[in-house]
């Protein structure tokens, strides 16, 4: 019964789903990516290369797919980038895991285990793998980033201390960013536009607060104009409000403005009160009083040289008339976002009309450089020259395009670019656990001895399957696909082994638990036998290559200033990497460090190849079953450069590029990238973490149960809500 409503939440199912998504998403990746046309139920047409938007537009039904989309969108909320890479990477990870299942399924086939039993067993196994992934992500990944990858990082800043950007490096960064986001004939133009905008809006003193402001208020900072070619897009100084003047009075010289959030005309009766009229004269008097009061307030504003009134509410005819009489321009019905943006820029608080007359001078006015109507394709806007009191110099982007859908795409891309810059200007914290480097092997050996189980046999066997793999990757000078076939060949070999030893299949599911428990057990065992171990550990620590000195529970902080010298576009930049070492116990040291703000790497899969290389190196040193997980992660990373180099042939093709890069790494030479352009490391790190978290989530699900509710019931609930 259950089987009719429930589907196994297996890797296979997840893989099928992600493969479909990958097919769609991979056609939009990179400089060769193409556009996707989405329609909305309202009939609106949207052009997009934005992964998040595409996934959203698909309205997926499959529960696993929905979960993946949720993961992607929560990642996007954080970073605004990387949805497509997310899917590709996830797909490759699942493929890697799937190939293991296939292998093990074959081995299980010969057993007479019931299907259900096998399913549950698989699920347990996935759960352990997912725990291994989590451990890797929380304890190992950041360490690799910090200890190996960081030496390749470049800094975008021309001067790291002051976080200043030079135009050429920003151009490289933005061009690479827009390559993947807007149509290929527009990306150069849009990245130039963004570059101009950036330098026009910021001063040398501006910091990350500018990005925050632009990111938060981007909708208010751009104006879309349809019917004009994209090349007519431009930047204009000042702020453009998407409203027309209710009354415009040209003014010269000093323009002072006030912001109001309520009607200036006093209300006839306040809310919650009762106004008792006893005679007609009383009504007329009160009307007269209202009129006179309004007139007086407007006169007062005029006497204070106020010539512009911005209002978040609609003002009555009377107010507008007296504004006109007194030469005050009025803009009404501004949205709360527009008001808050203006307030953020000039730091002006709203003016309270009723208190105005009691004060002889209105304190909350602000000077404006200019204030005039702006006509863009026969629509009128209000153009304000605000004098900024913060580090943001107000400028607006006028985005032109033949259709609204294209303008929207450009707007999204520009907004995303600011999100990306905002992330780039922040340090990314890295936290990881190190078992004083190479000692992990010995520690695990120790565990094996201690537990006294027969794990060694399957481990050794597993090792024989897995170990040749990384070697082949490096040695094989042709294609990665080939290595995969090699792998299959090896796994076939393994099967024959399995067939011989009948007791092994039962121990296979336990294989992984052994790894994941290992660390915990290491801790426990070590703390139990602390006295005996300390000596050993100190010896190990002393011999370790990084030579951290640890003693008992003492806290030690080591700061490495200027660990690396990097070079960007001819200008030297120093990249400080600070280490904070905190020794918690005897066996594991919890380290925290950070990817400093402004870290970048050349585009074209550099990050992925580097991480792939170091992960494989790390995997060699790992305990055998951990090695499986790490090498799956490492190999999945190559999925992204493979897509990027799909269209290239000859010397630029992926295998050639890969071999060159690995060779360069082995010989400690700099990697030569064929493409100019930079990408943010922070974004990539966050992406990797998000993907691994998503995969962990997928693996922990063992069953998807479809709940069918009767429509009537939903209906009745609904009507109750209405009541």
């Amino acid at each position: 019964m259950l089987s009719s409503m429930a589907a196994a939440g297996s890797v296979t199912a997840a893989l099928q789903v992600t493969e479909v998504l990958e097919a769609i998403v991979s056609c939009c990746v990179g400089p060769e990516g193409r556009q996707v046309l989405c329609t909305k139920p309202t009939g609106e047409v949207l052009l997009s290369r934005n992964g998040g938007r595409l996934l959203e537009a698909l309205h997926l039904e499959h529960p696993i797919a929905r979960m993946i989309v949720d993961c992607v969108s929560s990642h996007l909320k954080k970073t605004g980038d990387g949805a497509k890479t997310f899917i590709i990477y996830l797909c490759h990870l699942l493929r890697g895991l799937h190939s293991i299942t296939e292998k093990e399924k074959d081995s299980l086939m010969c057993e007479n285990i019931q299907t259900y039993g096998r399913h549950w067993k698989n699920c347990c196994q996935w759960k352990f793998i997912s725990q291994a992934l989590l451990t890797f992500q929380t304890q190992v990944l950041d360490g690799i980033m910090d200890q190996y990858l960081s030496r390749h990082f470049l800094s975008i800043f021309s001067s790291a201390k002051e976080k200043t950007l030079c135009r050429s490096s920003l151009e490289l960064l933005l061009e690479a960013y827009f390559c993947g986001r807007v149509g290929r004939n527009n990306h150069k133009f849009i990245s130039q536009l963004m570059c101009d905008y950036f330098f026009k809006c910021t001063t040398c003193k501006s910091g990350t607060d500018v990005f925050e402001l632009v990111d938060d208020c981007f909708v208010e900072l751009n104006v879309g104009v349809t019917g004009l070619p994209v090349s007519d897009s431009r930047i204009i100084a000042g702020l453009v409000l998407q409203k027309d003047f209710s009354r415009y009075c040209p003014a010269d010289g000093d323009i002072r403005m006030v912001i109001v959030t309520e009607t200036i005309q006093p209300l006839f009766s306040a809310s919650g009160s009762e106004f008792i009229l006893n005679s007609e004269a009383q009504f007329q008097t009160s009307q007269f009083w209202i009129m006179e009061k309004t007139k007086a307030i407007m006169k007062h504003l005029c006497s204070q040289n106020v010539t512009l009134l911005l209002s978040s509410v609609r003002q009555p005819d009377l107010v507008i008339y007296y504004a006109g009489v007194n030469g005050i321009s009025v803009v009404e019905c501004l949205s709360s976002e527009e008001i808050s943006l203006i307030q953020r820029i000039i730091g002006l608080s709203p003016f309270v009309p009723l208190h105005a007359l009691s004060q002889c001078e209105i304190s909350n006015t602000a000077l404006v450089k200019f204030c005039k109507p702006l006509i863009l394709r026969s629509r009128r806007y209000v153009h304000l020259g605000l004098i900024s009191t913060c580090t943001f110099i107000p400028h607006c982007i006028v985005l032109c395009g033949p259709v609204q859908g294209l303008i929207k795409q450009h707007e999204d891309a520009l907004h995303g670019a600011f999100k990306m810059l905002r992330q780039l200007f922040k340090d990314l914290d890295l936290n990881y656990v190190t078992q004083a480097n190479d000692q992990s092997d010995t520690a695990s050996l120790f565990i094996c001895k201690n537990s006294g189980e027969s794990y060694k046999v399957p481990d050794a066997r597993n090792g024989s399957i897995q170990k040749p793999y990384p070697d082949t990757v490096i040695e094989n000078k042709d294609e990665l696909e080939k290595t995969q076939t090699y792998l299959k060949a090896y796994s076939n070999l393994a099967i024959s082994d399995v067939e011989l030893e009948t007791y092994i299949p039962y121990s296979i599911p336990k294989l992984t638990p052994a790894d994941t428990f290992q660390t915990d057990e290491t801790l426990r065992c070590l703390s139990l036998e602390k006295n005996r171990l300390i000596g050993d550990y100190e010896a190990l620590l002393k011999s370790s290559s990084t030579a951290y000195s640890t003693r008992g529970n003492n806290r030690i902080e080591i700061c490495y200033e200027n660990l690396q010298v990097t070079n960007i576009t001819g200008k030297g930049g120093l990249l400080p990497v600070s280490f904070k070492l905190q020794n918690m116990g005897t066996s594991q040291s919890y380290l925290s460090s950070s990817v400093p703000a402004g870290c970048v790497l050349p585009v074209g899969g550099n990050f992925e190849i580097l991480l792939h290389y170091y992960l494989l190196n790390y995997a060699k040193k790992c305990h055998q079953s951990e090695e499986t997980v790490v090498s799956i992660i490492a190999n999945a990373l190559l999925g992204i450069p493979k897509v990027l180099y799909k269209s290239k042939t000859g010397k630029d093709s992926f295998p050639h590029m890969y071999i060159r890069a690995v060779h360069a790494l082995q010989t400690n030479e700099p990697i030569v990238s064929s493409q100019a352009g930079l990408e943010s490391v922070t974004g990539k790190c966050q992406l990797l973490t998000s993907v691994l978290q998503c995969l962990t989530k997928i693996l922990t699900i063992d069953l998807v149960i479809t709940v069918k509710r009767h429509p009537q019931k939903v209906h009745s609930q609904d009507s109750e809500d209405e009541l």
Partner: protein
Amino acid sequence: MSRLDAKKPSLCKSEPLTSERVRTTLSVLKRIVTSCYGPSGRLKQLHNGSGGYVCTTSQSSALLSHLSVTHPILKILTASVQNHVSSFSDCGLFTAILCCNLIENVQRLGLTPTSVIRLNTHLLSLCISYLKSETCGCRIPVDFSSTQILLCLVRSILTSKPACTLTRAETEHISALILRAFLLTIPENAEGHIILGKCLIVPLKGQRVIDSTVLPGILIEMSDVQLMRLLPIKKSAALKVALFCTTLSGDISDTGEGTVVLSYGVSLENAVLDQLLNLGRQLVSDHVDLVLCQKVIHPSLKQFLNMHRVIAIDRIGVTLMEPLTKMTGTQPIGSLGSISPNSYGSVKDVCTAKFGSKHFVHLIPNEATICSLLLCNRNDAAWDELKLTCQAALHVLQLTLKEPWALLGGGCTETHLAAYIRHKTHNNPESILKDDECTQTELQLIAEAFCSALESVVGSLEHDGGEILTDMKYGHLWSVQADSPCLVNWPDLLSQCGCGLYNSREELSWSFLRSTHHPFVPQTCLSHEAVGSVSNLTLDCLTAKLSGLQVAVETANLILDLSYVIEDTN
């Protein structure tokens, strides 16, 4: 059913352009637009199956706004054409046809979208820079000191819209009116920044086109009963005008958020009426001669004003408010009391006028840039078309004022441009390819697709089975009638090129447009004598055509770049 239905999954199609359905819908759209193109274009009748309004048109703006397209790709195409038309009013069909042709031609080649888009962009910039350059052979300067070229420009627009059903004389009449209306909107003594006035089009359906006329000032329509009540004013000086934007009907205005409790016997209506009459007294004592109100004036107030020889006109509507403010120089009044004296304006004179069966009050300005174009045509459909055409022509004149150049029309610009591009890509491909990864073969293929797309646009000017030729010197277009004998001397058959600049007396050699011929250098640098000697040229607006060209290529690029279409079926 419940409102909480789950969203249906979207439809996702890969490589949309290869699907048969898309190709057919695209070709249907293309047939619709090509058959409308040009002075001899066929008309389309658009109507709702369940009755109602029928639109007869051959204009892109009317056609596309009535057409409901469902396929997302077509939506992109029509939306970009419509957006272009709403900003430039002209060259809509040109844009649509060129875009369709480009997509069709490039599709046939089967090159990768990357190189197609890159090369298309290169060719486009080549066209743009040529059309903007001094050496351009299909561009003439517009001289605002004489009406000749301006009239040609307007006439070309009128003749390209056959659904207006104008005779030759009518065309001349309307062209002159449009030009006069345009000139009236230009302020007389403008320095530096010019702000153009407005031309209001007043409908007068069922009259002869010849009865159309242009008047300075504003016409306000009125029933003859109302008109009778208006007293003739005899006054030598200008009339003082008060313009109200608030209602004068005696409604109780906003009483706030609280409750108002009335004692027995208190009538707020009377109180407000008292207020209104006080206002009337103030107006009279301020010597106001004309009271205009956007909304309704209370009959008592109206009567009061009439008694004091003040003309009161109400229900003017929001559309006339801005021109009225501008023309009279008033401050729209939003108060029922204490009117500041500087918010009054003035008009030179007020008179009544009768055109056809309609009565109007005519406000004559002192000096202003507002004029009214009384437009007559025989029936509703033709009038609507004529109105759109007039608006387009006025807009084109404004654009020309900004950029005083015109392009040769009648298809000559397109053939000339195609000849230029062919010559450029053939003789100097390196300069176009510069730093690209595209090959020369790719360039030749794309250039051929691009040029033939341009040429098929002008090919669709011919709807009666005639032939289209091009000359090998200027690269202009020449058309031959359908049933002409084949083996005769070309100069006898051809009288004039498409734009009317050259005639066949010159020693020229011709070839069929669709036949393959060697690339040649079309003669650049138009001589002024040649232009001056011809009185009847067909001209196009430069700004509109440039933008149309860009929009067409950009949209085609966009559509060619599509790899998936995701359709939301909710």
